[in-house]
């Protein structure tokens, strides 16, 4: 059994985040970078499956040098090996380029049974990468999963979105993207942290993944951020003092906003 888990390093959500002035990409200079918390759960799910199926878990991350820290973190949690796609030309890559690169990296792993990813990363929030990767690899995609069961050659998943809940099933190999509800990730143990140093991490650039490809064709960015404005500050809410008519007022408020 071979599992590949896709993870991204993102600015700490606990800290204030900023976009760089010029191209509105994330300002990585002035922020603490951490393993994305939803992706961390994808990694946890991979490790849980590893415990029951004896799978080999490969962690894949695309990002600058610092992304190696996130790979090491997942190795410390218990993954077996890492692939780090690191290439200056990927700075600011959009979702399609990112997915193409990740799909190419997954193809370098032999006999993959399951690709796991977070349903989103907390920085971009595009939520499109897992689906595009699945499409490029020709795999069934089970997205927004909050519960996952693997048996022999099939995967069954409980999918939960704002639209409702569904049970999905697919034959392996497949791609699954998880939500933050799926599990509580473990803390890496000290033994794991020390062992992680010795686990293999392959670093690949674009030339390694797409030999002979010509940059201009490949790196055409399909999207560009034209403008970025901060979210407006929250305005104060409405205070309803109950003088016996609060119920009425609440109902009127909801009706006026077409919420009921």
């Amino acid at each position: 059994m071979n599992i590949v888990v896709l993870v991204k390093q993102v600015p700490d959500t606990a800290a204030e985040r900023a976009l760089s002035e010029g191209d509105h990409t994330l300002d990585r200079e002035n922020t603490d970078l951490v393993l994305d918390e939803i992706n961390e759960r994808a990694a946890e799910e991979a490790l849980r499956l590893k415990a029951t199926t004896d799978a080999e878990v490969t962690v894949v991350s695309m990002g600058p040098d610092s992304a190696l820290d996130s790979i090491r973190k997942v190795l410390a949690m218990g993954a077996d090996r890492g692939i780090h796609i690191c290439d200056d030309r990927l700075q600011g890559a959009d979702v399609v380029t990112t997915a193409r690169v990740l799909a190419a990296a997954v193809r370098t792993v032999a006999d993959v049974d399951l690709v796991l990813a977070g349903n989103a990363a907390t920085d971009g929030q595009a939520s499109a990468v897992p689906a595009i990767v699945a499409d490029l690899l020709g795999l069934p995609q089970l997205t927004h999963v909050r519960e996952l069961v693997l048996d022999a050659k099939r995967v069954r998943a409980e999918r939960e979105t704002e639209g409702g809940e569904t049970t999905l099933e697919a034959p392996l190999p497949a791609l699954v993207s998880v939500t933050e509800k799926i599990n509580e990730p473990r803390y890496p143990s000290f033994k794991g942290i020390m062992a992680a140093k010795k686990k293999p991490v392959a670093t690949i650039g674009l030339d390694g993944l797409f030999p002979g490809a010509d940059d201009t064709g490949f790196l055409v960015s399909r999207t560009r951020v034209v403008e970025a404005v901060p979210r407006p500050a929250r305005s104060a809410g409405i205070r309803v003092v109950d003088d016996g008519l609060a119920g009425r007022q609440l109902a009127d408020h909801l009706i006026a906003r077409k919420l009921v």
Partner: protein
Amino acid sequence: MSAKPLKDPLELFDIASVLTDEEREIQSTVARFLEDRVRPHIGQWFENAHFARELAPELGKLGVLGMHLEGYGCAGTNAVSYGLACLELEAADSGFRSFVSVQGSLSMFSIWKWGSEEQKLQWLPRLAAGEAIGCFGLTEPDFGSNPSGMRTKAVREGGDWILNGSKMWITNGGIADVATVWAQTEEGIRGFLVPRGTPGFTTQDIKQKMSLRASITSELYFDNVRLPDSARLPLAEGLRGPLSCLNEARFGILFGAVGAARDSIQAAIDYADSRVQFDKPISAFQLTQKKLADMTVSVGSAALLAVHLGRLKDQHRIRPEQISVGKLNNVREAIAIARECRTVLGANGISLEYSPLRHANNLESVLTYEGTSEMHTLVVGQAITGYPAYR
């Protein structure tokens, strides 16, 4: 200019730059665990004098318990990593650091260093996993700084030993599954492993403490406790046995104190930034800045001293008097810092909602146990002058 206060006073020293990736990773893992599992409750636990025993297996899973020991289920990290874990633990509460110090450096280390293979196999894996809890009984009601006078006594009877006496101020005593107990014998001071439930061995927790309330401190009583010779730590002879363990624990403390100081300063910086008096944040007044600046310089020096001593320990060349230098300076500075931070918080400073006074109260114990500050002063004094001035 929009002012943005420093989150962590140690940033000014870039302490991280003298640590390896692995050491930083271990430190941040402990910090994160405490953030999730301890910090939200610690005020309440301190108030209710509650020790969260259920966290022991979780600390075991992380690898915190006996982390600097090799083999027998221990993580086998370097000394600096152990120190950094203590730093984060004590930044949360000295009670947790005390639990970990006693478990790893006193109970487990005494078995690891002086025990038989059988004793190690019996106890170390369970202690490392946090499934069993250990304690270390040296201090007695009448013998604290001068343990060589201890009255607890073990006499041979056939192949067995009969243990009589009592121990006082024993961390984890009431919940320990195994006690390392030091006693006089005809051949001098020896150590014994006394399992909980051995007939004649009882404990009583000490109540009404104003310090280390989130940690258990107990009296141990031994009334004709019969022990087989296999309960004796075969390699420990004389006071060197317990003193070697204390050196391990003190090493953790000299890092831990930095944590309590750092956490107090963080609370003070944060509070001084948001508290407005006379139309200004109090952090904009010179007197407050002098406090914060002096304390930051002090905590940074303490941290650098700790890392330096850690490197010496990892090179196996640290001397006991150097550990005394670290314990003396870092605990003394930490308690002064915690008290000063309390003043920055004004009335709020006396509430358990903020950490500085809790740290200051905890540090009263830390100043006293593992060798009082006076004792460490005398050790340093002797190292300088050549004259022992203890008696």
